[in-house]
């Protein structure tokens, strides 16, 4: 993986610009940002499975954190956390140091985090949570950073500033995308925990400020104006993580208007963003006053975010458009489209920019496919209502009954080429409806009853049908049963119950199982009985075979289904080594080898 903080310490003599740059993943970036913020103590997760941040802390423990006087704690219970945060020592005498708490786990942490977020802490404290439920906590300093290295560093800086100002811990949410992120940041000097604690003590006020004011003071809520001389007329209010993207979207829309010669400029649009979840600017602050004075505002925020309502109620902001987005899967084109559709409302009917904005607004909906139907999509659910074995069995029966056609969309009854109606029905449905599960007026036919369910025998008996049980793990057995039953017209119905059979692999004595790919080809019926997990897709790399071959692997799950496979495919073989210790055995084998080659032309 990427270099660790410890590794970076050892290579600080790197050349040129690399010296001041640091490339790392989540753990490294967080550890570096904590050092730069003068953290005095770190409380690691009490979960047995360490988070990426815990792992980075462990890596840096000896060579990096300890020499800087950072105290590491690993709590075994959450109840011990509050005393530590409210009166930390962290090995420092004097002012309470800054701390960091890593909350492991991705589910069910909300009660603990709510409690943590309301603690009156002595120094600045930042918590890291991987549980996204924390975004729903009210009246707390919860920060939703951009999942980039720069975004995380910015968030940690702001979180400490806000925590010190508010006298309460700030929580940073680490979303799933941040777990896999990598990035390069510019290194700053490490801050001394003691000096930072003293500096915090100097700026701390006894009563602390409200969390909204603290957030604004720490730069968690920010605004930038356009270049228009008169200031802002409109505001684009966005969630913190999409701030950068929103700026680009606005710039792209504005550039398009310039390109087409529109008179409208978007340089009077202010962009307001809040990385503190659920917190809007204070009414009497600069941003709040600006928002209260604008003519129009557009809000783009995640679904759960209530910022639009808060802007209307708290600041009386004229929010004309609200768009919910999923920040995780957002594309730039979507943002451009949203901004364009909002900007469109500002244009007059004869403005040449109108058509350009319409085009931008509709760009997302435009198809962008390249034979995409021929690209299998991951995780897609195929239209296959019966198990692969039953499907293979029914397909095999086509060799006798032809390809049946459905008689009625409401009933699962199919007309075979032999004239016998075939109904494929789940056991529960057949038990409930008996022969009436077939399409009305089809006469005596064959029922293939799949799955488990009581009452099938009784229902068959009540319909005057004969009944047959078939090994549900053998496609050939199912196909033979269906083919035989449907081969000629019936005087009474026949029910084929496909049993759920769990085959158990017979013990194998030192032999290896395998398949010849060229004899399997790209057919999938023969290996339908093998569980998916016990198969491998193999590319033959031949010009004549377009596509992969499915082979059964030499694993117990496949061994259990070898008999059904061998009934359908000539590709299987067993290989066993034989003992050749001893001169007699070696001579015997050499003789056999020569004889086989001479007599049968097989070169062993």
């Amino acid at each position, binding site marked *: 993986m990427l270099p660790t903080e410890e590794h970076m310490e050892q290579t600080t003599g790197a050349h040129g610009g690399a010296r001041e740059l640091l490339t790392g993943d989540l753990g490294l970036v967080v550890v570096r940002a904590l050092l730069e913020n003068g953290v005095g103590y770190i409380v690691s997760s009490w979960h047995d499975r360490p988070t990426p941040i815990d792992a980075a802390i462990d890596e840096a423990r000896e060579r990096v954190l300890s020499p800087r006087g950072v105290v590491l704690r690993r709590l075994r219970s959450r109840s011990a956390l509050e005393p530590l945060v409210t009166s930390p020592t962290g090995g420092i005498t004097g002012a309470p140091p800054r701390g960091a708490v890593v909350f492991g786990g991705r589910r069910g942490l909300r009660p603990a985090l709510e409690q943590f977020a309301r603690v009156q802490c002595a120094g600045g404290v930042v918590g890291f949570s991987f549980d996204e439920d924390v975004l729903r906590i009210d009246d707390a300093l919860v920060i939703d950073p951009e999942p980039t290295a720069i975004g995380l560093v910015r968030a940690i800086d702001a979180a400490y500033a806000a925590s010190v100002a508010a006298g309460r811990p700030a929580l940073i949410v680490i979303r799933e*995308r941040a777990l896999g992120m990598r*990035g390069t940041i510019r290194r700053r000097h490490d801050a001394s925990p003691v000096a930072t604690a003293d500096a915090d003590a100097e700026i701390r006020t006894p009563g602390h400020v409200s969390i909204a004011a603290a957030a604004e003071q720490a730069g968690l809520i920010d605004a930038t104006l356009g270049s228009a001389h008169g200031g802002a007329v409109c505001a684009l209010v966005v969630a913190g993580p999409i701030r950068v993207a929103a700026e680009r979207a606005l710039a792209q829309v504005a550039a398009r208007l310039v390109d087409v010669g529109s008179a409208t400029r978007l340089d009077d649009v202010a962009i307001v963003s809040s990385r503190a979840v659920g917190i809007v600017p204070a009414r009497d602050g600069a941003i709040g006053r600006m928002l209260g004075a604008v003519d129009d505002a557009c809000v783009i925020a995640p679904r759960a975010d209530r910022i639009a309502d808060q802007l209307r109620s708290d600041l009386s902001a004229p929010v004309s458009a609200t768009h919910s987005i999923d920040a995780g899967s957002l594309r730039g084109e979507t943002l451009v489209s949203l901004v364009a559709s909002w900007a469109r409302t500002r244009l007059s009917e004869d403005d040449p920019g109108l058509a350009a904005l319409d085009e931008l607004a509709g760009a997302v909906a435009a198809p962008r496919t390249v034979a995409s139907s021929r690209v299998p999509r991951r995780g897609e659910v195929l239209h296959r209502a019966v198990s692969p074995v039953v499907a293979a069995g029914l397909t095999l029966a086509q060799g*006798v009954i032809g390809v049946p056609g459905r008689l009625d969309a409401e009933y699962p009854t199919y007309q075979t080429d032999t004239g016998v109606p075939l109904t494929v029905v789940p056991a529960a449905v057949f038990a409930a409806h008996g022969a009436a599960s077939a399409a009305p007026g089809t006469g005596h036919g064959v029922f293939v009853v799949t799955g488990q369910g009581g009452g099938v025998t009784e229902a068959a008996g009540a319909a005057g049908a004969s009944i047959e049980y078939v090994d549900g793990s053998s496609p050939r057995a199912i196909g033979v049963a269906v083919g035989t039953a449907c081969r000629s017209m019936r005087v009474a119905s026949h029910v084929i119950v496909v049993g759920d059979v769990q085959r158990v692999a017979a013990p194998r004595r030192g032999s290896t199982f395998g398949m010849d790919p060229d004899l399997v080809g790209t057919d999938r019926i023969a290996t339908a009985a093998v569980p998916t997990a016990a198969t491998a897709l193999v590319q033959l790399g031949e010009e004549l075979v377009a596509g992969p071959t499915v082979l059964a692997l030499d694993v117990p799950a496949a061994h259990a289904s070898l008999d059904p496979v061998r009934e359908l495919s000539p590709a299987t073989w067993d290989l066993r080594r034989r003992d050749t210790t001893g001169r007699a055995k070696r001579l015997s084998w050499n003789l056999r080898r020569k004889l086989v080659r001479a007599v049968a032309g097989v070169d062993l």
Partner: protein
Amino acid sequence: MTGTLPPRTVDAAVAPSTLVTDAGHERAASAPDQTVLPAAVAALPVRGAAAIRPWSALVCGLTEDRTLLVVDWLLLACREAGIVAQAVPLAGNSRMPHGMYVEVAADADIEDALGDVPWGAVDLVVAGEHLELVRAIDAGFVDSDVTTVVSSCRRAFTSVERDVAPEHVLTEREIDAIARTSALAYYAFDGHEVAGWYHLPSAAQPGLLLGAICGTGITGLDEADFVAGIRALGVDDKLYAEAFRRGTRLGRREGGRVRRVKTAYQFTRKRRAHIDHASRLGFEALIERAAEIVHPDHLSVLQDAIYLLCEFQDAEWATILVDHVADIAAAEREHTGVVEPHASVVPDSIRALAAMLVWPDAAWIANRKRRTGRIKDLRNAHGISRRDAYELVDHIPLDALDRAATRSRRMPAMGSPAASVPPLLQPLRVERVTTTSISGALRLRRMAAAAKLRQGTLRQRHEKDSADTWLEALHDSLRTDHELARIVARSGTLVQGSGAVREANRATAHAFWGRIVRQSIGIDRASGDAESTVAKLIIPFGWEQLCRSGPLALWEYAAQVLGIALAHSRGLPHDDTIRLAEALCVARRPVEGS
């Protein structure tokens, strides 16, 4: 390195209050009257005009192929060059590629503007798996004005591809064609194959990709930066540094994978020994003729097919295939004109004919089992030397017809009562042949010798009938629409497997050709619809359902197409027929069950 979006940034120097229109009249900007703002608001920062998108890349691949190492190396190489970069995973989505989005701040003043939101087409797409590249193109990351693509042609299969018919999935050449037209530049090679050239393990593919990226010069970074990146990461750095060195050459030559087509002499030189003596001259003549019939890109597949058929039976049998291929190529030229090699029906037709004209009867199975190459591969795979004793047991299912055919030199299948019984219902015996024993090897030899008795058998006629049915459907569709013909050409390989499996697959294929393809083409032809509206609706839909849901999909749709054709033949207006076809082409679950 330059940004690519937006095409032109907002020029902050232009005074906002006035604007010169195209007509040259100066008029007031349309901004409403400026609100009087408090002094505190005026202190808010003014953002710069150049909110330009930085240089960006997308690196995609599957977990197994370790392509995402390229991201780490790229970031570290940028760091070596003093450049800040960010990489964020793409959100999980069935249509999105699996990979990371990278943004690089070419200038220090836009470092803070690096974001995590993927934005339009990127400057560089790196794909460690070929279908992932298509997913990236499909998701809009590739543009013919800005994007350079560096990709490995290697396919790594996901679980969903076990269930989808392989004929349906885009082929390597089709992907090449899509990438060439979609991208500014396309560099592709088979990573595993190239690694083999340089005696590197296939795991070296990410190193080759990084080398190719460096070779293209798209990043503007030096080779030394990349090597320093590999060393800094420290993951198998010796291997990857070597792979990187080899890979730089791959990035200097644009285009897809280079395939060497063998000349007629090169192809036949070693293979002629495996052909029956009586067929050797014919084999050589056919290989020479092949070059005159098909495009050079399709020559290797035709050569392989000729060899296969000569090995299966004789040169006369292979001549049938070559004649059919010549007819198909001529028909395609006649009806469609010049076709790009990747879009031609010829290669799929050759595969289809080879699949239909070579059937795994007892003789062919024995032939395959006796091959020296097969036994050598098995020994190598299991670390068995020629001196080590081993026992190889082959399990060969033989129905009554197969057993009878291998029993004596007579052809008992002709007129035998067993011939009227479908293979599925014939008594089956799985023969356990010990190939490494004298008796087993002799048994295989006897079975293989039955190949001489194939000529003129009922089975041979049966298989030829399938090929003829497919050929009729193909020629019909070639006369109608080339895209439809491509589908029909691909469908020929449905006829696969041995015994009952082959019969079942044959039934599926015949239902597709007879009930779907020819019926829908017939409807249009009877109506004089030159646009072939019904066929263009029904055939692609039926084919997709068949490929994605399996043969049982035809149970849902084939009979309905017949019904529509019947109604049309009885006087249903063409417009109503189209409406019925549209109503039919809605996917639904095929067979109710558990």
